[in-house]
């Protein structure tokens, strides 16, 4: 098969990074990205982009750890290069604080982030309502910059990017040999996946450049993540809520909760409110499927359902998806050479 044609549906962090991995591992492939939404209108654009993993109950821990490690290593190298500012990747240090001591001693990712340790008593004095904490250094992506940078890398490798709303994966069967489904929350409707559900997150992006450390409450609901151009204040985790409209009551609540963790935020300016729907699932759907109609087959690789952890594992799952695409192509080439006999 000359130049296998691969379509990647979705242009959030998963779609773009998966397309890049495919282009890197399969130089003979012709890769095209199709999406109806691009940065700054994807779910990824709302995310703070912090590399702190979300736990998927349905995926073995060693697999999640591998994905996180690959992603961390990849971004660590970028943060240390001249490309760091364009890609929007930088280190940030801070604290995860708990009102009650967490059950497990150490999270599985404690040896992947940098300098992980328990907070000292003196550090905890800054958080009078919290008894315990972890201090560490991790990476943060400025999502809009990162997506732009990925798109630029894609175009440089010859990947085409088109605006197109795909309403049925099958519609691509005549133009493409393999389809990669990175549609995030869109997979609910696109492939009728009943296992995926939104977890609505409202965040504030504020101007508070004196905040240089991140602070996260271990309950995951209140967090302060300083980025390149603004500080993300969060948040909410509203399961099953599809509304993308900002809620003013929620805005006030988020602001108050963050100010109680970091009082200097009272002076924050230029408050913008954003909403994203985390594409949540018990486990990331990262698997092959062969669609078949009337004797025609269309191999599909699914890579969606990353919930709150998209940035943290994106490179690891993109590499796995690219590997599965490679398997699909090998199978197609195998069957096409059998057909020649």
């Amino acid at each position: 098969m000359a130049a296998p044609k691969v379509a990647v549906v979705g242009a959030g962090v998963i779609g773009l990074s998966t397309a890049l991995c495919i282009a890197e591992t399969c130089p003979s492939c012709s890769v095209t990205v199709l999406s109806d939404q691009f940065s700054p209108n994807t779910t990824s654009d709302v995310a703070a982009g912090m590399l702190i993993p979300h736990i998927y109950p349905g995926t073995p821990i060693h697999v999640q750890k591998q994905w996180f490690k690959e992603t961390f290593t990849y971004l660590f190298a970028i943060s240390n290069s001249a490309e760091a500012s364009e890609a929007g990747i930088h280190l940030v240090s801070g604290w995860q604080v708990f009102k009650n001591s967490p059950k497990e001693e150490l999270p599985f990712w404690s040896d992947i982030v940098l300098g992980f340790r328990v907070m000292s008593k003196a550090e905890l004095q800054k958080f009078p309502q919290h008894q315990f904490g972890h201090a560490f250094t991790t990476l943060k992506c400025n999502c809009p910059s990162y997506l732009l940078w990925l798109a630029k890398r894609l175009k440089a490798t010859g990947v085409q990017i088109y605006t197109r709303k795909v309403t049925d994966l099958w519609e691509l069967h005549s133009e493409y040999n393999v389809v990669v489904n990175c549609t995030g929350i869109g997979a609910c409707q696109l492939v009728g996946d009943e296992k995926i559900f939104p977890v609505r997150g409202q965040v504030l992006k504020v101007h508070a450049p004196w905040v240089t450390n991140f602070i996260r409450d271990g309950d995951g609901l209140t967090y302060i993540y300083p980025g390149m151009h603004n500080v993300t204040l969060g948040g909410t985790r509203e399961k099953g809520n599809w509304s993308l409209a900002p809620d003013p009551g929620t805005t006030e609540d988020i602001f108050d909760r963050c100010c109680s963790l970091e009082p200097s935020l009272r002076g924050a300016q230029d408050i913008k409110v954003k909403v994203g729907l985390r594409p949540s699932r018990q486990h990331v759907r990262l698997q092959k499927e062969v669609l078949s109609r009337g004797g025609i087959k269309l191999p599909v690789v699914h890579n969606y359902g990353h919930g709150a952890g998209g940035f943290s594992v994106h490179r690891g799952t993109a590499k796995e998806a690219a590997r599965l695409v490679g398997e699909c192509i090998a199978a197609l080439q195998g069957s096409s050479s059998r057909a020649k006999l």
Partner: protein
Amino acid sequence: MRVAIIGAGVIGLSTALCIHEQYHGLVPSLEMEVYADRYSPHTTSDGAAGLWQPYLSDHGNLQETVWNKETFDYLLGHLGSAAAKEMGLFLISGYNLFTQPVPDPSWKNIVLGFRNLTPKELELFPGYSYGWFNTALMLECRTYLPWLTNRLTQRGVKFFHKKVESFQEVFAQGADVVINCTGIRAGELQPDPELQPGRGQIIKVLAPWVKHFIITHDIKSGIYNSPYVIPGSEFTVLGGIYQHGNWSEENSAQDHKTIWENCCRLLPALQRAKILQEWSGLRPARPCVRLERQTLRHGNSQAEVIHNYGHGGFGITIHWGCAMAAARLFGSILQEKKLSSPPQPRL
């Protein structure tokens, strides 16, 4: 009781505030004036990035270690308040890098979360094999000095824009006590061969992705002669120049090259940073801070001077501890003049 403060950098203004806060209640007749020919943003303090960090070694000046700690604790106490942002005060974490193992510094238990760097962290900094991580404070003087000025103005302290030529001039105008916070130019009021400039030059850049301070150390070349990167609230400061005895306040193209090349080697991402401004200043270096009383003859009487200068490259780091020490000296002057005893009942 008239008090004249000479100098409106971080030392002058904080000493003024400390004295006024402590003694205005006890001495209702206290009148305070500040004299300076340079005010923010044109003081030496304004050029400093604002990082609280003492030198690596206290050279036996244990008193200075105490003053550093008092300053840190004082600032830390203000962190949770609404005033912090108006003071230009915030927490910042970062790295100190070395080419060989070194003993822990005297301030390791003053800062927060002090620890050694892990091997993986050291991968970020090729050429450096040892280092520290800790959380410290930033106090940006371009915000802090106006804040101090506001507090002082609210208290009725008067400000004069003038170059004082001699202590006698100020005494002649009626000052009872002069607080000498003239930094690098103290020698113009009273010769002090121990006071020398430690010339520094910095480049201010836009690099909003830098969230940590990075101070490198080269034991051979000495403090601040090795690249450093200190991010602030509006720009990032690149530096690494310390020239003892150089009085030039002109920017040097050679120093620019040194700073730029060294900092970009340390943090390759800086190559894309936009350069905003360049600045040179003279750290008022002295083997130890001059913080002491001196009684001078003025006509037929005596006049008191409290010296508080020579804070080198650690003025912000030590300022409040010194202000309190100067206030104690002021208190002893009041005792001697019996002015801090309660007012006599009217007959």
